[in-house]
């Protein structure tokens, strides 16, 4: 469980990134954090594993006050994947990159290799084991950085913009992996601008703007709240736009978030009735 109480943080005392953030994420939840560029999303998740320490307020991890915990202790519980893979990758092969974290956590060579192979294949990176991460495309490097953290199967997985540069198929396999880990009781937290990814896979959404949490609740109500969307620079996804436009003419169309299958069934009913 992660608890933040009135957390404030400013960079160099000049740029205030968090202005009193309070939130609780329970074990086994899957949560999306969305919001304007510069809203403080990345600053927020860096508090989860101690990369940043609150300048005011408190952070509790598994019931412990983290001011008493080292980054090494926190990193065993929370695995963080950065937005820019180049901030994370540093070894000469994908295999070494992934094995590095595992060995630090005390896995044997064989265990590390087995997990490494598993993770590579789950992320569609078979055949990449011996290749240098720096010879890969942007999207591929991003998946290697993900793999290096996913392989350690931390209790809490916090990912900063994991879908950037990924095509539809890779997004699906990423989502499947995250949901599998979530089913095994792991907490999954993503920072993302990808609304469709959130709607399909994350029941809870936290929306941020200007260093504060503007809304925190079930995804469908947060992402249909016009004022929240406006303040957090979010836009309605296509299917919800379609539902909104259809609602003007057909009063049985709901004002909730619409999925692909919702619109498919509405359209089928309307067209077959015509």
């Amino acid at each position, binding site marked *: 469980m992660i608890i933040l109480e009135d957390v404030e943080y400013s960079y160099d005392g000049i740029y205030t990134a968090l202005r009193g953030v309070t939130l609780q994420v329970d074990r086994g939840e899957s949560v999306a954090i969305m919001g304007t*560029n510069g809203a403080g999303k990345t600053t927020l998740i860096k508090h989860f594993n101690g990369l940043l320490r609150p300048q005011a307020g408190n952070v509790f991890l598994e019931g412990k006050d983290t001011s008493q915990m080292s980054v090494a202790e926190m990193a065993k519980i929370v695995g963080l994947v950065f937005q820019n893979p180049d901030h994370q990758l540093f070894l000469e092969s994908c295999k070494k990159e992934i094995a590095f974290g595992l060995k630090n956590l005390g896995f044997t060579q064989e265990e590390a290799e087995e997990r490494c192979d598993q993770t590579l294949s789950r992320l569609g990176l078979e055949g990449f084991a011996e290749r240098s991460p720096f010879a890969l495309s942007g999207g591929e490097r991003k998946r290697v950085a993900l793999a290096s953290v996913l392989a350690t199967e931390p209790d809490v997985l916090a990912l900063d913009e994991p879908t950037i540069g990924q095509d539809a198929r890779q997004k699906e396999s990423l989502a499947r992996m995250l949901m599998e880990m979530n089913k095994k009781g792991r907490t999954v937290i993503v920072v993302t601008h990808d609304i469709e990814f959130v709607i399909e896979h994350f029941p809870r959404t936290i929306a941020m703007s200007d260093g504060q949490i503007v809304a925190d609740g079930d995804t469908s109500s947060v992402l249909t709240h016009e004022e929240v969307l406006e303040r957090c620079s*979010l836009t309605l996804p296509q299917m919800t736009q379609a539902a909104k436009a259809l609602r003007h003419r057909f009063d049985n169309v709901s004002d909730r978030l619409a999925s692909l299958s919702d*619109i498919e069934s509405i359209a089928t009913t309307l067209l077959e009735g015509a």
Partner: protein
Amino acid sequence: MALVKFDDFSYKYYGADSLALKKINLTIDNGEYVVITGPSGCGKTTLCRAINGLVPRFHRGYIAGHVYVDEKDTREHEVAHFAAIAGLVFQNPENQLVTLNVEKEIAFGPENLGVNPVEVRRRVEEIIDLLDLEHLRDKHPHEMSGGEQQRVAMAATLALNPQILVADEPTSNLDPKSAEKILEIISTLNKRGMTVVLVEHRLDLVAKEATRVVLMDRGRIVADGTPTEVLVADICQDIGVGIPKATEIYKRLNAKGLRLGSVPLTGEELALLIQEGTV
């Protein structure tokens, strides 16, 4: 002759095991808005780099075939020559911004090309106005949000007065509103006559404004046509490219024998077609 012409162009990065581009034939004419898409690692970025000679001049490797930009072979001219013809904007603006404030950033490119100071001044003002950057004029890039940085990176590129704007996933780090703004600017530039090549995964955001979609897979061009032609084709799903949800609905309805009047690319278009279908 076409503004950009790939003539049987193949390319392999030094040290790579396989070709990044395989026998690419592609011509882009003045005024087009071409969206390049395809699975990650398919060669989109390499293709962009080949348009201004970064491939092979900066990113070294093996080449076969030719790329002609404004009728000049990229093998025979320096990158600097193409900088004023094809302007590149990258995914991460931080990698592109080099100076201490917005005015200097915009002036940097043309000053280095030896453009006279009066003209540089004129371009800076024109672009600040065009991209709505007045409030950022004296700001340091690190004091700006990602969306603002990307607008500045684009401004600096446009200051070179390129004939063609090549943007490689310029919105992928941006929140949806900022992304919309960048794409609106790109679309406006195109309507004013600038040729645009845009790499993008999120076709729901760009398909409507584009005149053409080029689909790539494993170093090859596998489809090339109008947005509706390409996105409705099954090959998109076969290679793992996400089509707009509205287009997906069209295909699903079609499979059930329910025909909409045309292929929708946006939610509004879809809603309109459904309404028309029920009248």
